[in-house]
Each structure stands twice: as structure tokens, then as C-alpha cells.
């Protein structure tokens, strides 16, 4: 886990990690969210809707933005203030997702870092993009 101090953060600082989307993640997310929409759990339903298989929950993939902030950039001292997410393409179980982020604005007065972030799959397809607002605790 990274543990950037406020003074160590700079515009342009980046972080990146990979994660493989597993069926167990889908099962866990369905259980905790209660989102029983068959698009995410019924392959036949998903195929009838035009997808190759069940579509991953958008908010599941977005959970990796939480890991980005809390573990990687800025890491342990982070407190997530807000996040705006645009879902660009569907993700599926088995996809290898690359989650990346970069600091684009810093505010010393309130120790707030704004980041732009994105998730792409193994083909380079953009899954989602996000604007993240994170405070940095002392």
C-alpha cells in the first residue's frame, strides 16, 4: 500500500494496476448490492440483449477506483470525497482490466487532490473514465 504524504504529491503523478474480473466478484457484488437484474447474472438473457455473456456490474468495475484511491494514489492517507464516472463499454468476467489514474489538480488549502482515472480492458477498450476527488489526511 502506498502512503503518499501531501507534500509528496505532484501534478502528473500516476498509478496503475491490473485486475482480472472474476465470477466470484460478480457473485459477491450481486449479494451485497441486491442488483438481481438478469443482464448481470443470466447469460441467455444477456445474449438475447445483444451481449456475448452476462455484463459485469458497472459499479463493480468502479469499485476498483476505490482501490486506486485508498491503496495506490494517494493511498493510506486518502479520504474519498467524490467521484464522477462515465461507463463507456461493457466489461465481462475474464477481462483483464487496467486501472490507471493521474493527479490533475492539487489544493494546498484543503489538501485535496483531483485525479482523472480510467479503466481499459485487455484489448485497450475504454470501460469507464472517472474524475476523482480525494482528500489527503495528515
Amino acid at each position, binding site marked *: 500500500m502506498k502512503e503518499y504524504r501531501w507534500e509528496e504529491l505532484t501534478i502528473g503523478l500516476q498509478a496503475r494496476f491490473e485486475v482480472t474480473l472474476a465470477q466470484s466478484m460478480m457473485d459477491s457484488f450481486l449479494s451485497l448490492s441486491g442488483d438481481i437484474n438478469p443482464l448481470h447474472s443470466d447469460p441467455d438473457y444477456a445474449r438475447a440483449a445483444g451481449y456475448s455473456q452476462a455484463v459485469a456490474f458497472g459499479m463493480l468495475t468502479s469499485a476498483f477506483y476505490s482501490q486506486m484511491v485508498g491503496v495506490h494514489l494517494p493511498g493510506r492517507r486518502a479520504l474519498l470525497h467524490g467521484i464522477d464516472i462515465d461507463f463507456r463499454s461493457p466489461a465481462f468476467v475474464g477481462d483483464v482490466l487496467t486501472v490507471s489514474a493521474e493527479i490533475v489538480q492539487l*489544493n494546498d488549502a*484543503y489538501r485535496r487532490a483531483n485525479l482523472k482515472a480510467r479503466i481499459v480492458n485487455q484489448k485497450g477498450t475504454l470501460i469507464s473514465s472517472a474524475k476523482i476527488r480525494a482528500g489527503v489526511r495528515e
Partner: protein
Amino acid sequence: MSTEKIIGELQPIFRDVLDLPTLQLRADSNASNVEGWDSLAHINLVMAVENHYKVKFALGELQELKNVGEMAELITRKLKA
């Protein structure tokens, strides 16, 4: 640049950040009379304003501001500096 002109420029920024598309910003607008202007929104507003004018506010400067008019005056001083 006049304070009135700055307030006119701040209005779309405040509308966007606070998600208040019909907000009419005035010199005496502040957190107590504008819906949704809480502490987190305040940080968002300050950073949006800093980004727009390419200026930086010190914490002391921000703590002295009583309303949008004073923010506009502070911006005017920074743009002249």
C-alpha cells in the same frame, strides 16, 4: 476586470458545481443562502475557480471570505498581481 464581471463569470461555475442551473449569483451570496453550499461543495467550488482563473488561494485568504463579492474582489487582486 470588475467585481461584477467576475461574479458573472463565477455564475456558470457555481451552477455547474452545485448543480443549480438557475442559480442567480449575487455579491452577497454565501454558504448560508445558497442551497447545497456545504463544506465539500466549498472545496469543489474553490478548486473549480482556481482552475478557471489559474490562480491559487491560501487557506488564510479563503477563511476571510464572507461572500461571493469578496471572492470576486480577491480574484481581481490576484489577476492584477
